[in-house]
């Protein structure tokens, strides 16, 4: 009977929270719109990764069939967009006026490098690059590779070692948006639950609802269980929307298996408990958002939601290891992209352990009773 009564209190609070959620356009908007905006924004920026092209301005002062052939060779790499510049133009002024990041000058007499000895003359390709541009290194590598291959050919050499490039996956070719989507799921699970929990706990404590609840038989445990159940449901709502947008807009290839579902469930509970702990130290509703943001915002960037941890400096990667979101992101990627079951289970266990710790601490420090 006690068990039935307890579960009925959980149900009553769960139903009340659902009603209030759907009556609050703001809550619905953020649950739906936040992840969608993130995917569309980042998807639009990065979805071309892998087939990105870089602009290269070429001024051919040689004007010979050989120099034209060299430009065609650069063009045929498929990575460069070649923009030809009139040989009569002052290159320095042109670069300045047009904010150009990569400018290649083919010197006069370039074709004489291809004459047989002893008429052959060395020539130097002049590549001016903007070192602050992220693409300049790539352009330099490509131009250098093209000139090296000419040198090889002129020296009469042949290619002995070549490289074949394949995507990292057993089943399909994955791109940035596939990598990014589990990160969006992880960070949505974190931001929506932490923000909601901190806001709700602080508001109800401040406006006296907790005082009223404390005079009834509902226990803190009933209350917390129902809130966590509701947060799991909200996170799954977001996940469905994230996957739908990912599939429709960017043709993502992700699998939602029992392990990833388990990680999503546990992370919802983990971050709800984290919100509970933060709320304990927040005085009023006005500071609740800032307090939640102060914890979630750095974690969002440090836990590899947007970029792989490998690309971070070692000290940041070390900090990332202390972030619960890191294990959520890693676990979701292991299960949803890489089909790395062992890695996914490992991360699932870490998330489960953290969930238990956070829930015990959260429940222990939360109280309705006043001193």
């Amino acid at each position, binding site marked *: 009977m006690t068990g039935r*009564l307890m579960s*009925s*209190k959980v149900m*009553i*609070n769960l139903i*009340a929270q659902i*009603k*209030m959620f759907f*009556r*609050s356009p703001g809550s619905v908007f953020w649950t739906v719109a936040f992840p969608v905006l993130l995917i569309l924004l980042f998807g639009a920026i990065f979805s071309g990764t892998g087939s990105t092209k870089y602009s290269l301005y070429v001024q051919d002062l040689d004007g010979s069939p050989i120099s034209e052939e060299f430009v065609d060779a650069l063009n045929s790499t498929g990575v460069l967009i070649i923009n030809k510049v009139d040989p009569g133009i002052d290159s320095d002024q042109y670069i300045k006026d047009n904010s150009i990041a990569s400018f290649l000058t083919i010197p006069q007499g370039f074709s004489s490098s291809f004459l047989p000895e002893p008429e052959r003359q060395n020539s130097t390709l002049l590549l001016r690059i903007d070192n602050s541009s992220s693409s300049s290194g790539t352009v330099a590598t490509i131009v250098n590779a093209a000139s090296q291959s000419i040198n090889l050919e002129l020296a009469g050499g042949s290619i002995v070692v070549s490289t074949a490039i394949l995507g990292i996956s057993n089943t399909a070719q994955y791109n940035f948006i596939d990598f990014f989507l589990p990160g969006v799921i992880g960070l949505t699970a974190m931001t929506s639950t932490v923000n909601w929990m901190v806001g709700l706990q602080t508001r109800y404590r401040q*406006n*006296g*609802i907790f*005082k*009223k*609840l*404390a*005079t*009834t*038989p*509902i226990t803190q445990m009933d209350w917390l269980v129902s809130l966590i159940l509701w947060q799991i449901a909200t996170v799954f709502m977001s996940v469905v929307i994230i996957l739908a947008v990912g599939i429709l807009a960017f043709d993502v290839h992700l699998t939602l298996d029992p392990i990833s579902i388990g990680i999503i469930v546990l992370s919802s509970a983990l971050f709800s408990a984290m919100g509970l702990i933060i709320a304990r130290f927040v005085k009023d509703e006005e500071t609740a958002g800032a307090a939640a943001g102060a914890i979630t915002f750095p974690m969002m960037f440090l836990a590899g939601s947007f970029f792989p941890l490998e690309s971070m400096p070692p000290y940041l990667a070390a900090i990332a290891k202390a972030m619960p979101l890191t294990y959520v992101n890693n676990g979701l990627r292991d299960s949803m992209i890489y089909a790395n079951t062992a890695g996914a289970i490992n991360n699932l266990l870490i998330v489960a352990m953290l969930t238990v710790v956070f829930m015990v601490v959260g429940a222990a420090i939360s109280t*309705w*009773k*006043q*001193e």
Partner: protein
Amino acid sequence: MAESVITVQGLVKRYGDLTAVDHIDFEVYRGEVFSMLGPNGAGKTTTVEIMECLRTKTEGDVTILGMDIERKVRDIKKRIGVLPQDFNAFDLLTVKENIEYFGGMFKHQLPADDLIETVNLGEKRDVYFKNLSGGLKQRVGVAISMVNDPDIIFLDEPTTGLDPVARREVWEVIKDLKSKGKTIILTTHYMEEAEVLSDRVGIIDRGKFITMGSPNDIIDRYGTGTTMIVRGGDDTALQRLQGLSSKVERKGNDIVVRLDSKDVLPEAIMRIHEEGVHYEEVQMRRSTLEDVFLTLTGKRLENGEEVKKGKRVKK
């Protein structure tokens, strides 16, 4: 006297060096309205919140319906109803949904529709709580405090912040509860509220009861008695009234006579109702709890704050 449902003995509550409740003793009897009357910070809310199992006590014994407040918290909660100070319910649930929500927390609950009728909120049944006025919100709070059909109802400053009309509407609801035989503990800093609603009043100041009893008893004991005001009374009237009471004084055009006993009233009327004595009218004024508070503490209360000679008293 009827059966005692609350007993408080030697109750003390300290917050560091501050003693909010200082060795108080009292009992509340079944079916009565017992009011704790006093200024803000007197210890009223701390005392009721200890009885409601919301706060811990420092010392003393408190039993509710014979159950110790520390050992029988769950059992006590089932049998009391509470309207906390600054009550709030869920903004985005309707009146009915809020009542049903809190009702659902109890094994035994009264139908929400019956409670809505009791507090006269039939027309607001499906209105969100956030869209109600302050007075209506308090009535929802009273309905919720009754949802488990409790033996004892605690109403902590139920009319603070309400306008006079809304305050009287809440009074009607409380009178209705009283007529249903509920035991009610009311805290207030409104003298009139305590006088109108209570069977017994305990006046509390600085953590201690300074007097306790029925409003009439307290007024008789500490009040200034009955005052007769003779409007526009002439000097002949003044002369005739002097000697009747120890306190006869002229205040502008009026003569104010403090009657030591109600028995002298006919004599006073007879003395001025004679030829050659001129006056416009006679008014009678009885002491109020406000006069008692002034007599006992030397202070008046304005919206819960103590005022002494026109200045707020700092604590």
